[in-house]
């Protein structure tokens, strides 16, 4: 796997995708839209069921947890894998912004007693932790951030894990609507959550993707005329995944570029796509 400078290539296959955003409720329901065969229509997203969460945990969970768990479950179900066998990578720019708002309100008040539940829900690995508890999983789990490029960073982390251990990995990227007044510091007006099961290359997958890390800044916008979809891609860090998701939905060999900070980008080359009817 070790190659010379600038030649790093990681090959992984995709075994399942989960998706939740306005007008994109589930991968199956969204594929035609992302492929450009159906128009994109904005809509209000109902609170996800996230049925894998025990009722007690679900009741206490934040929106971010329920969205992340919902897409993770959708992707795992497609893959047919036992979630207890799958390490996880959760990528989010800001994590639990809604919890920070509640905590900081209490801490700014006269009586600073915060709720212990609210406190443990403030960590960046809250969604990862709830997923682990819901699935009784004991595999490794990483939660990370790279501001607007958190999806690309998560993709690198998950792909490196697949390549070094030759096993499937669940990648979840999510960022939720930021509540007022924090939204002035970080305006995110729409939630977005995506989950992808990555694994060692195989013909029995949805698609095989080659990743190379290259110098120079760069980011591909969505080339199609769906301005609202491109707007969503720009407005939510997790939605930067849309260029990859659209390319997979189109099911044709294609290369997309994702920014990694101001000095690098990853080239994702979709080598083969096998979007058979059971995946529609």
């Amino acid at each position: 796997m070790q190659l010379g400078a600038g030649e790093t290539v990681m090959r992984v296959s995709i075994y399942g995708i989960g998706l939740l955003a306005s007008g994109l409720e589930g991968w199956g329901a969204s594929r035609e839209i992302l492929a450009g065969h159906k128009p994109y229509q904005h809509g209000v997203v109902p609170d996800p069921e996230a049925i894998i969460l025990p009722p007690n945990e679900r009741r206490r969970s934040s929106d971010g947890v329920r969205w992340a768990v919902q897409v993770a479950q959708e992707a795992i179900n497609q893959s047919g894998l036992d979630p207890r066998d799958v390490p996880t990578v959760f990528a989010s720019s800001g994590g639990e912004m809604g919890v920070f708002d509640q905590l900081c309100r209490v801490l700014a008040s006269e009586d600073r007693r915060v709720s212990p539940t609210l406190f443990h829900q403030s960590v960046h690995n809250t969604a990862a932790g709830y997923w682990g508890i819901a699935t009784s999983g004991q595999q490794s789990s990483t939660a990370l951030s790279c501001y607007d490029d958190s999806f690309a960073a998560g993709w690198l982390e998950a792909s490196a894990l697949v390549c070094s251990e030759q096993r499937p990995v669940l990648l979840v990227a999510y960022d939720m609507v930021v509540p007022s007044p924090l939204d002035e510091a970080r305006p995110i007006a729409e939630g977005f959550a995506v989950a992808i099961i990555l694994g060692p290359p195989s013909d029995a997958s949805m698609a095989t993707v080659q990743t190379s890390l290259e110098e120079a800044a760069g980011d591909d916008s969505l080339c199609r005329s769906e301005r609202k979809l491109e707007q969503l891609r720009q407005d939510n860090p997790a939605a930067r995944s849309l260029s990859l998701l659209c390319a997979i939905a189109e099911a044709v060999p294609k290369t997309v570029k994702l920014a990694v900070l101001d000095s690098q980008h990853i080239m994702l080359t979709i080598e083969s796509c096998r979007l058979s009817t059971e995946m529609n």
Partner: protein
Amino acid sequence: MPSNVQRMAPLALSAYTLVTANGRGVVPVLEALRTRRSGLTSCDFEDVALKTHIGRVAGLEDFVLDHELQPFDCRNNRLAWLGLQQDGFPVAVAEAKQRYGAHRIGVIMGTSTSGILETEHAYRERDPQTGRLPGWYTTRYRYTHNMFSLGHFVRTCLGLQGPAMVVSTACSSSAKVFATAARFMQTGLCDAVIVGGVDSLCHTTMYGFSALQLLSADPCRPCDEDRDGLSLGEAAGYALLESGDRRGGRETVALLGYGESTDGYHMSHPHPEGAGAVRAIHDSLARAGIRPEAVEYVNLHGTATKANDSVEDKAVFSVFGARPACSSTKGWTGHTLGAAGITEAIISALCLVHGFIPGTLNCRRVDPSLNSRILRENQVGSLSCIVSNIFGFGGNNCSLVLGKL
């Protein structure tokens, strides 16, 4: 499911540095360990009204980050900056840049709360009419509180252009950065990685751990029969990781193995049998290609909460028995949360280089229910292999094996 753990190539810690309540740089940290001088003092952090002890780094209020670093100015990044000035670390990074190029060096940082203290302050200054946050805050959220701020800051200070991220898995954050760095180097994404962690005192963690009834009123007493909770601390630490084949002589400290797991049990309580912890320790030994008998010292997570120390003891005893010396260094530094991993990795490096084991500070009588060989007094003698354990919220565990090339 069989574990896919394979032996890893050792990674040299070719430079490292640490700032804790014990001082700036490895010399005062080492001196404090040897003379058994704790960095914990009665809480005087801002206007916190809690009866507890803290491991506070002196001087963070006495300077600001200026010029091009001004947007990053906050307690967490000041501490990060202070850490970067010690032990010739920037020189070592500049030399690595000459060897590999700025694009080939990654920055993988760990923190749990980043610069949340800025948001806490901003909420106190909300406009009474509109509820809006002050302008000084909103323009700088990205550079202070956002979880990536620390990675952005360190990458900017060191002039690096490789991939970067912040790992934030509560207390295990800056132990897990070693695992991510090892994978990035194994897959060729980087030739070298700056790993590290910075976490600083804030109201969220102080009142949060108080709400969980996990804060001791006294300096924490890991493994003591009367231990009654943890003391919070703050720290910044970094290491430059390079291929062991390419760098370093025979005595260079190296990362030999890592193991990561989760409990899948509870957000803030450890698994009662320490099942996840055992898994992390086993995987770290397998990657290092060593048997438990080769480990001479286990640097415990040892937070001094009733539950942690007791569950960790079960896990450690089940893997190692009562043979290796075990101790916690939280009595010196306090629990530095997202910086605990790097803090204890570098303390372990100091133990390897200087041939000593710190006995558990503030442990007056070892809890008789603990079965591991808990050391109370410092011990001198050459060492070749140490395991450092870190466990965190969300049941997130990481163990590191450190030794010499």
